[in-house]
């Protein structure tokens, strides 16, 4: 029962039940505000009937030419609302907006260890496009999968032909 609506600044006062989860980062205000200012439609929240935040998605549209695509910056669902298809709803929203913006594909990065998320993205039709080495800093650094799903504009699905070679984070945009 996902009431999706645009994320607003005030939601930040009550997203603790989502953000206290150790794998969900709480960013500085500027980060959220920048997304809200630039891509307000790409920042959606799923709200429960009681007004609690069940999860949210944060994304953007970027790239030139046939690299014009939707990107998932953050996707998170509160522990109590997992396994209810909320992440899928949020992803569907982002894909839909990207379709409307005539993007070629949607992509996202995910920790290679995050098997739950990877499995979900695979279910939603994403493929592992390539590996980005040591994308997540930490101790030790962790690789990311760059996962993609082609949208209808990419008729020949050229955007989702997996790359064999892993890339360094600094080269992500060069290939």
């Amino acid at each position, binding site marked *: 029962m*996902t009431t999706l609506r645009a994320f607003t600044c005030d939601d*930040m006062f009550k997203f603790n*039940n989502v953000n206290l989860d150790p794998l969900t980062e709480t960013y500085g205000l*500027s980060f959220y505000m920048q997304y809200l*200012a630039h891509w307000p439609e790409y920042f959606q929240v799923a709200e429960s009937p009681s007004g609690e935040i069940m999860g949210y998605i944060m994304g953007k549209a970027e790239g030139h030419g046939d690299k014009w695509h939707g990107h998932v910056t953050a996707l998170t669902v509160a522990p*109590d609302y997992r396994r209810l298809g909320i992440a899928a709803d949020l992803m569907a929203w982002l894909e839909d907006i990207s379709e409307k913006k005539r993007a070629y594909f949607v992509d996202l990065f995910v920790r290679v260890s*995050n098997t739950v998320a990877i499995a979900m993205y695979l279910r939603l039709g994403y493929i592992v496009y390539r590996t980005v080495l040591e994308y997540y800093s930490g101790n030790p650094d962790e690789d990311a999968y760059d996962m993609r799903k082609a949208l209808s504009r990419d008729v020949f699905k050229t955007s989702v032909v997996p790359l064999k070679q892993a890339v360094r984070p600094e080269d992500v945009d060069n290939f």
Partner: protein
Amino acid sequence: MIAERRLRPIYDLLDFNNNKKAIQEADRVLKKSPELDCARVLKSLALLRMGRDYEAEQLLEIVTKRAPCDDATLQAMTICFRELRAPEKICTIYEEAVKKEPTNEELLTHLFMSYVRVYNYKKQQHTAMSLYKLKTKNPYYFWAVMSIVMQASDTDDKISKSITLPLAERMVKKFIDDNKIDAEQEIQLYVIILEMQHKYQEVLDLLASPLGNMLQSYYTSDQKKIEILLAMQQWDEINLLLKQLLITSDSWQNYVLYLNSVFALVSKNGNAEPVDLASCDVITSVDMCFGSAAQYLSILAEKKSALSHKSRGVHLVRLEFYVKLREWEKENGGSCSKDSSRTSTPLADKILDSSLVDLLLSYYKVFAATPCVLKDLKKYLSYLSPEEVNVLSAALWKINGIEEEEEFEPRDRTSMMQFISCLQFNRYLGKYNNDVMCKESKMALILRLTRTYYHCELYTADQAPAEIKANDALILLVVYLLHDLYVLEPKYIKYILLYLHHVSSRNHYNFNLELLSLYYYHRIGASGAAHMCYENLDMKHIQLDSLGYLHLGPLLNMAQFTLAANVADATLKFFTINYKDNADHLVLSYKFGSFLKIKEFHAFRTRLNNSVHYTLTTIEKMLLDVLHLTSYREVLGTVATMSINPGQDNILWDELRDNRDLNVFNSCNPSHMKPERTTHPPPPLPPSSNEEDKQNGDDSTLSSESSRLEVLKSLIGEMQQVYDKMRNDQLKPVSEEVQGSPPPSRLFFYLSHSFLPHFLSISRAVLTLAAQPEGSGFESHVVESVMFLKRDFEAVEERFRAVQTEGVWANHSALIQVMNLFVEMIAITNIMCGVMSAILKQAKSWSTGKSKEQNAKKKKKYKKTATTPSDNMSADSPPKNNSTDSSIPVEIKEPGPILANVIAITKELSGQIINITNACEEILDEHFQAHHNLNVVVDDPIEQELVTYLLNHKEPDENKTCEEGNQLATKVENLRLDENKPVETKRVEMEAESKQDAAETSSTSVTNAGDPAAAAAPVAHSCSHHRKQDWITCSVRVNENIMNSFRVSYNKLRLVNLFKSFTFE
């Protein structure tokens, strides 16, 4: 180009924060090319970063006068003025630049953005229009339009609105007519303008036009249509539209709106009872009665049952419908139940062909295995009658196929989840409340749940490591039950912490456990330990505002000054940075045409800036800073930097916003145990908690002495009124019962002791003395204040005696809190004495015929006066034995000695505080030795049951011998309790045993002749050794955490007591 090459090194140095070198480099560049203003500005930036604001400003002023036009210089200046928080100066430099180059598009754009930063909508508008005239680009035009809209929303004035908004409308209309619209945002803006003027029909027309199709990202045309129809109360259309939308979506908001439309339609058409439904298609026709709505919802449910994910909305909407019907019937006098009160079927039951309990159960059956099932249903549970609650509770157990009292071992993950939700319902419905369930049964349930928790580890083994373990919910339930026991007997808090520690040491990912640990550590007064949880939770940025209330207050109460200062600093930094950065986001919004967000950002900035927590933290930090100083001169210096204007209250009391997130403890506790936001009316008078700061504002803008006295007088009056009112109101802390309630304010300690009367008396002494330096009227106030101070010290002593006789944690906590306030009062007293002696000295110098001193020289004078009181002190023997103290000899007519006496008394009391802290630390050590692990002797059978269990409980797959062993061990344990051995010996034994446990890695037999317990020990060990060890380790850890926290608190109090060496030098 050359310039850029020369500047590069300076930029690089600034990037690396090498400010000193940057200044040198800038100087070098300026020597060669003095005309290079950019170097000058970069130098100012480096100066700013080193805190040399004044020099920086001077340089900037020079450059400003030259009105530079090059981008690099202007950008650098923009950064400087941002740092200086002088955004208006950014406008000035761009205004000057534009004057020189009026056709420079880039400069004009910067000028526009500079006006955005200062919220000057009118100038925004003009600049945007100039831009548009220069380059006919759509964004510029719409910047102008948005600037007009902001002018309209900024004012309440109807007339100006009636001019500005139509102007904005006409401007967009013109573009539409000329076919010049090319972005979705432009239509969004047009909709904003029409909505602000309540031109709803125009919005609908727009939505229906081809332009309406452009609306598809932020909101869709349909969504907006519903909003507009709602505003127009067009229920027929809303009803039909929603019926269509709900077929494909499961949006809860739409369900609610749909029901609203049904009720509005029925109220309008007066058809509560079913009409002939066969004749129409319920999906495509407007609902005229409740029956058709019910039918529509069942069709919807059928359609959605085929979906892969179960839709919660379509199930839940029936409950929503049910309670709405009930309320409707109540309001409308219950047309069908008028005849008899209870016997006839309520309308809701009739329409939905089901009772509330059945509806709840059918929802439960579908979603019982999801963790949110209770959250979804909470709202509807409140409609149940007590009998219905019983029926529901019994039915829930039945669905789960178990008897309430029996041991439960779920056979798989799903049945575990169902069992958990069943327990959560019972908890929420009040089945485990203290008045319903006795302590014995509660303890039995706690133990059963603990066993089930271990049993269920089987079903969570496959969960990803970073996921919250599903069986943790059982431990949360245990914690809630222990909380009930804690409300009855505080000692149970220890076991709460023990459980939390035990489980979170096995699973680091459950933030609920960490959050509860933070809460309970603070409750027990172990704020240092709470701080570890705080760090684990990694609270930052906006959480400092929304959750800071859980942490900062208790840190201050428990005298954890260093931690408190750190947290306060981080918090204040968050707020100031936001205030600076917020304008940047507005700039971005214009840039990207996100007009929808501009008002929102504006409101958000205000909300943060008026945060109660922000205000509170600011003041607490000022107090912390002042009270930790060790000389009167330092106090004067520090207060001078605080820009306090005593005559003016800078706090906008009516605008303050409570940004606390009170729902963060997400529990299944019954509603009366959940924290609630009570809307207290704002205080009648703004309480001024820092008067002592205010009156010291040497550089204050107040001109004459007499007006300063007036201010002091009125502040004292206000304080007295607030104090009286609060005493009259008999404010009470939130009940212990409420789990996760905001920590109690130290206000309660203030009110129950004489701290505030003391503060008021000594303030009056200052006032009287300042008004009449030659008179002696202030003495009586001083005497009175010392009397209050003594009374407070007695309170400290009383608490200390409690710690001595019974070293339980709670006594330490209370003692530390009272001592903390007491030490604060001593500091304030010393500062006040400093003020008074300064006044006296000044009066003396006047009487000796000296001309009136200037403010600037005053500070110097304090230095000289300093010797006077201390001289007197040595001459006048200070009251050494102050317990019998007749204290201030009133016969002393000289004012100097009186002050010296007060100082002497505060020193004496400070010394005693230090003695107390020392003694308390010793008591802590003893206490710790005696109680550091679980093997304590307890005389409470219920508590004993828990301890015994934790030390001996069985493994999930244990064999029978083991169980017998455990039982034997339990029996022996009980036997030992009955023995009337002297406590001391027992402790030693337990110690020995636990040490042995710690040393053991495998189970070795411990045979200790003569001790029956030892004989049984190995049997128990063989199966539960590991867990037992774990519990013991946790217990030691928790105790250590608490003790160390108290130690730090005592230590800090001792350190801050260095104030006793407070001098006037």
